């Protein structure tokens, strides 16, 4: 008995000793790293992602990569809030009479983090690298750009194989590389005399000129970046001195880190329950913004029974849009087009509402009216985004009322990508949310509807409509903006009655952030740029460490 009490007292003493040695921050070590460490007195903004991002601008192309690339590199042109672009590394530009040759004049006062001056040669190198590798954002250019040449140190030309009205908009994703630095770090690879094209080096290092530079890269953990004090553009004095992208977004971890002020911003994949509970904590608020993300039901137009437009319309009438916009994705706006209202070229397409009777009527008009139960509709939701299961269950509940069989399938993201590669393996319905690659309607038409790019997670509707493809090609090749917008609208008119995909909600992205010491202007609707990744653009965020 005495021994037992003595043991308990020892344990109590040990706990008390620990309490006096509390540390709450994470750290770095000699050549190794731990989560989101910083030594800059709290002048750091940290946010979470689903995985550690790829920071090679020739490789990374998802949201995580974009949040880092936009900070450590400079794009050729910068997107604006209204969806247009402004000069950035390119001071000005002109297009030839035939609309195929674009000539850009480059700033002559920009230096890379290495100290090398940024020249037209670097711009040409970056584009050529994207085209040669074919990864990352290369898909935006590889069907358009035929030749790249640096005319002199401040002039670069892109020669296209057709008139490319959207080229300028896509160049927001051309992140300029320090070609000399990359060439010095070629490793062994499959690109002939260029070896690996610097892929191994750029995996963990940056060769950019952006407002931040990579300080530490820890695979499967985080990326830590520090401010570029020699940046060519003026930075707000309250812009963070460092930022960290943490490659883990487990809800319990995010909540605890936010409450302990070890995290400043959450990611967009947190459930509404997590965000709402964080919003109740003192010093943490919720920022709501719209960056052009729309939650869709992508319908397989080549697979029974969703190959019938009446069945597709029936699905549109089965969705309870109030629940979607108020409960599942709180404060979202019902989408009235497959193009976001924040994008250039938006036009209202339709106004579906939750109407079981109309759904029944549509089924009755379809070719499957007599045997619809023989064709169960497979609805797949992405496993890593729990809120989307609710969408699938909503459809299932409504379908039960009219005797339509719906199978809800939880699918890991990797399998969604793979399943999207053929019409046979693509589910009838896939719940996916995305924004256009650039803030124009053409970004959605080209990436999500054109048959030439079918077989990706974004483009798995398998529409196979030659007329639609022709209309898209014509719109994308129109140089004049007003004419191009008119063609975008014509496409939306053409698709209005076909219900090729169902736009559910203009997603209001909700982030919890440390409002007591952070001004999260990057996500503030008044300032935010509607391009993927820009909610984490550090020059548009202010931090006040003394208020922490």
């Amino acid at each position: 008995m005495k021994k037992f009490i003595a043991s308990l007292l020892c344990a109590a003493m040990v706990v008390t000793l620990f309490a006096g040695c509390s540390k709450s921050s994470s750290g770095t070590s000699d050549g190794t790293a731990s989560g989101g460490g910083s030594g800059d007195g709290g002048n750091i903004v940290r946010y979470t992602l689903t995985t550690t991002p790829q920071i090679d601008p020739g490789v990374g192309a998802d949201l995580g990569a974009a949040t880092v690339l936009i900070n450590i590199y400079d794009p050729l042109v910068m997107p604006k809030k209204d969806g247009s672009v402004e000069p950035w590394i390119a001071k000005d530009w002109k297009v030839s009479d035939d609309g195929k040759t674009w000539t850009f004049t480059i700033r002559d006062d920009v230096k890379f983090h290495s100290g090398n001056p940024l020249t037209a040669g670097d711009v040409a190198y970056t584009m050529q690298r994207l085209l040669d590798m074919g990864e990352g954002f290369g898909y935006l250019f590889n069907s358009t750009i035929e030749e790249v040449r640096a005319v002199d140190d401040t002039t670069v030309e892109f020669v296209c194989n057709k008139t490319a009205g959207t080229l300028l908009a896509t160049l927001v994703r051309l992140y300029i590389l320090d070609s000399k630095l990359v060439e010095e770090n070629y490793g062994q690879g499959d690109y002939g005399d260029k070896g690996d094209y610097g892929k191994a080096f750029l995996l963990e290092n940056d060769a950019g000129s952006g407002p931040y530079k990579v300080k530490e890269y820890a695979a499967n953990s985080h990326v830590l970046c520090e401010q570029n004090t020699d940046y060519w553009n003026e930075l707000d004095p309250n812009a963070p001195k460092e930022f960290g992208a943490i490659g883990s977004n487990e809800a319990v971890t995010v909540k605890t880190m936010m409450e302990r002020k070890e995290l400043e911003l959450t990611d967009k994949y947190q459930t509404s329950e997590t965000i709402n509970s964080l919003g109740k904590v003192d010093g943490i608020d919720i920022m709501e913004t719209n960056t052009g993300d729309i939650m869709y039901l992508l319908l397989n137009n080549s697979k029974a029974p969703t190959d019938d437009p009446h069945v597709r319309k029936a699905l549109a009438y089965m969705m309870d849009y109030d629940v979607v916009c108020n409960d599942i994705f709180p404060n979202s706006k019902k989408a009235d087009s497959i193009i976001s209202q924040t994008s250039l070229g938006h036009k209202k397409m339709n106004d579906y509402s939750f109407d079981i009777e109309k759904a029944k009527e549509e089924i009755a008009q379809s070719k499957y009216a007599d045997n619809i139960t023989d064709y169960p509709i497979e609805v797949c939701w992405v496993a890593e985004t729990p809120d989307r299961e609710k969408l699938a269950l909503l459809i299932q509940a409504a379908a039960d009322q009219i005797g339509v069989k719906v199978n809800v399938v939880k699918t890991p993201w990797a399998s969604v990508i793979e399943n999207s590669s053929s019409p046979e393996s693509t589910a009838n319905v896939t719940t996916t949310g995305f924004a256009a690659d650039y803030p124009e309607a053409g970004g959605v038409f080209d990436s999500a509807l054109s048959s030439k790019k079918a077989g990706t997670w974004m483009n798995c509707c398998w529409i196979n409509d030659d007329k639609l493809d022709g209309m898209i090609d014509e719109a994308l090749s129109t140089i004049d903006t007003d004419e191009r917008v008119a063609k975008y609208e014509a496409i939306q008119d053409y698709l209005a009655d076909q219900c090729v995909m169902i736009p559910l909600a203009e997603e209001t992205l909700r982030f919890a952030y440390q409002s007591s010491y952070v001004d999260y202007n990057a996500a503030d609707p008044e300032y935010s740029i509607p391009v993927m990744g820009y909610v984490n653009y550090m020059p548009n965020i202010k931090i006040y460490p003394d208020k922490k």
Partner: protein
Amino acid sequence: MSLLKSILKRLASALVVLLGLTIIIFVLMRIVPGDPARLALGANVTEDVLEKYREANHLNESLPMQYVYWLTGALRGDFGMSAVTKRAVIQDITDFAPATIELVLWAGFPPILAALFLGVTSAQHKNKWQDYLCRFLGYIFVATPTFVFAVLFVLVFGYWLPVMPTIGGRLSPSFVIPDITGLYVLDALLGGQPAAAWDAFLHLLFPALALALGKTMQEARITRSSMLQNADKDYITMVTSQGVPQSVVNRKFLLKPSVIPTVTIIGMDIATMFGNAFLVERIFNWPGLSSYGMTAILNKDTNAVCAVVLIIGLAFTLTSIAVDIVAMILDPRMRQKRTR
């Protein structure tokens, strides 16, 4: 010599087991739906880029040939490239394995003392309150999944009573330690930095506890059962009747034979921790091998999965050999059986 022979025989059979394991995993990863090229390169790359990747990684060859390429590379220490991290898998393994090894070492070995203490106490005070308490706690801890402990620790010690570093890495930012073994506590001590060693230990404490608690109580229960079984044996009755003090009986005659089953279980527990630590690593953002392996599985990163499974299989095999050796040391009869 017989012990050495036995170990060599075990190693030889372990190699065969590991080979079979890699074949099974390799085949499973290849036949599960999912195009490795598309998963590695991204969703928007063109078909010709995908085809180049497939050619470079022998994905168009037959399954047996693909395995031969993989195996010949593995024997040279080249497990290929990870589709997720885009680095050589061997580099990933050398980066992440020490974190898991350190976690498992601290979760596996120090709790042995607690398990033995609780088991012995419980057996010595059979049907008294110490026994009831140990058994009650044992039922709860054994039934509670590891990740529940992890979440509880984060909640209690990370949020309600923020007294400990609960999440986010292995060391606080103010410390820089030499990279000798990759085991931070040991490296800090070898580098003459006791404060850093203490800090690294504090970072380890809760992940290790979460991993260890259920297994420790299981081991305690087995120790208790074993001691109670042996306490009824004739030789114990004989030494007790000779007037040998109870403490000497317990220490010299009862404990050694009673811990053999516990040692076997401890070995298996430590081996399984390598694979089962992934939830703890995810919750605590611990940059370890298990978490890396789980990410590889979810992203169909074949090369990484095969390598991780091989490493874990190797850990299992080596641990079971070590357990056998310890058991032979504890029980001379096992040595004699082998010499006959």
